[in-house]
């Protein structure tokens, strides 16, 4: 299923967009250190905390936008020449089609995070004093951010699967992103809004401990997947 989704995304600009996005977010911390930062890098501080505090908002914003646009695109390919109808007349389950798309975006998103880790790692090593736990810290952060982004991926796909008009799906996604930037991070419930979770960093969220948010993210992912499954049968009912 996954390879099939990969094949379907050919020539749509899906892969290049994620690649471009990955390069861009990877560059943000480097550009920040090169041109903007006025921080004294000779202090004994955790470079990752500094870099994330300064740049994570923008990096997360870029990635969530990427998720929304990617999700819209994957469903746009299905609906534009009626291919979805063909899929529905084949012996596969709608929810598997959805799940394969979810896996595809998740995997490619992991790639984006790795690029970011490289950017962050490079900036830390190049500009800051040596920080012994850096590799471990980076891996932990990447894993954490990946988990916290899963609900956003499911939600974006869910919206895209509901609306065949791509501009409506895209518009709702944008509104969701905007809402995420406006919501306070001081409150666990507000921080748990799926599009808001990717904005949280491991050290920077006051509202809840990291493992709480991991649980929240996992539960949200499962709940959204269940909603998707239910909605498939509901839509079949109304078709």
């Amino acid at each position, binding site marked *: 299923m996954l390879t099939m989704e990969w094949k379907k995304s050919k020539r749509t600009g899906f892969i290049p967009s994620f690649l471009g996005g990955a390069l861009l977010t990877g560059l943000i911390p480097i550009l920040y250190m090169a041109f903007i930062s006025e921080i004294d890098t000779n202090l004994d501080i955790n470079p990752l905390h500094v870099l994330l505090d300064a740049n994570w908002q923008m990096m997360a*914003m870029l990635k969530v936008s990427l998720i929304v646009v990617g999700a819209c695109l994957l469903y746009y390919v299905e609906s534009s020449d009626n291919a979805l109808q063909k899929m529905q007349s084949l012996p596969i389950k709608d929810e598997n089609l959805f799940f394969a798309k979810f896996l595809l975006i998740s995997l490619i998103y992991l790639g984006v995070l790795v690029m970011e880790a490289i950017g962050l790692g490079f900036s830390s090593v190049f500009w800051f004093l040596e920080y012994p736990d850096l590799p471990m810290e980076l891996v932990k952060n990447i894993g954490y951010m990946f988990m916290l982004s899963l609900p956003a991926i499911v939600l974006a796909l869910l919206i895209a699967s509901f609306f065949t008009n791509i501009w409506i799906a895209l518009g709702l996604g944008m509104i969701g992103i905007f809402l995420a930037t406006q919501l*306070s991070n001081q409150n666990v419930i507000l921080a748990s809004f799926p599009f808001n979770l990717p904005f949280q960093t491991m050290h920077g969220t006051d509202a809840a401990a990291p493992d709480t948010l991991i649980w929240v993210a996992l539960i949200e992912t499962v709940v959204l997947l269940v909603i998707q499954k239910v909605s498939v049968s509901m839509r079949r009912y109304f078709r």
Partner: protein
Amino acid sequence: MSFFHLIQVEHKKIRRSRILLLLLIAAIVLWLPAIFNIDLSFDTRATGIAPEDNFFIQGFLGFSWFLFPAGMVVATVLIRQLERGNKGILKMLALPINPALLSLAKFAVLLFIAAIFILFAVIIYYVAAGYGTMVNDYHLLLSPTFVFKVAAVFFLVSIPMLSFFWLLSVCMQTMIFSAGISLVSVIPSILIMNSDYWFIYPMCYPFFVVTAKYGQLAAHLSTTPISYLPWIPVAVGFAVICLAFSCLFFGKAERR
């Protein structure tokens, strides 16, 4: 066919697209957090701004930084998809109209959508401010002349950005690229705005203007004041070049 007539035709095409509903939802989402966090509007010790000004300007900052540009990216996707979705563009190009005029007419629709979006934001602002006035027993409503003046300036300075979005959607065959690049171009505006060369980056004009207004209203806040030179010539030149190229390239790919 006159240009005005053509705009009417283009306007008809966005019927039942639910774009207005979408923009209305966006405008509501813009002001809802402002109502929830209304206490923050009264906390003005650091900036020295009047609470009613603060309430208005904070909302418009969010609007100009992300929601408005993102909404306009969606609107460009809409206009493009309506035309290419069922090959409507082929029909249009086969009719005796000048493609350049057609491109301009579509751009006019984009401007129309932008104006409506700003209008929605203003209307919902008055609803939100009215509610805030009732709840807090403090007059939060600003005079319409002031608000509409800000809105009008906001609309004008967004035109170069919109012409850039339009150029991208005309030139790029792959929709995700044009939408993606437009979006990506918006996100760093917050960085560029603070540099000395903000005027060469049209994506930050709306945000810049609102921020400058913030600086004017807040006594203890110093923001870069607006300098009309070389900004205005650069902005006009940018918009004209973008529009000229979009007229030139419009329908090129389909007529290959």
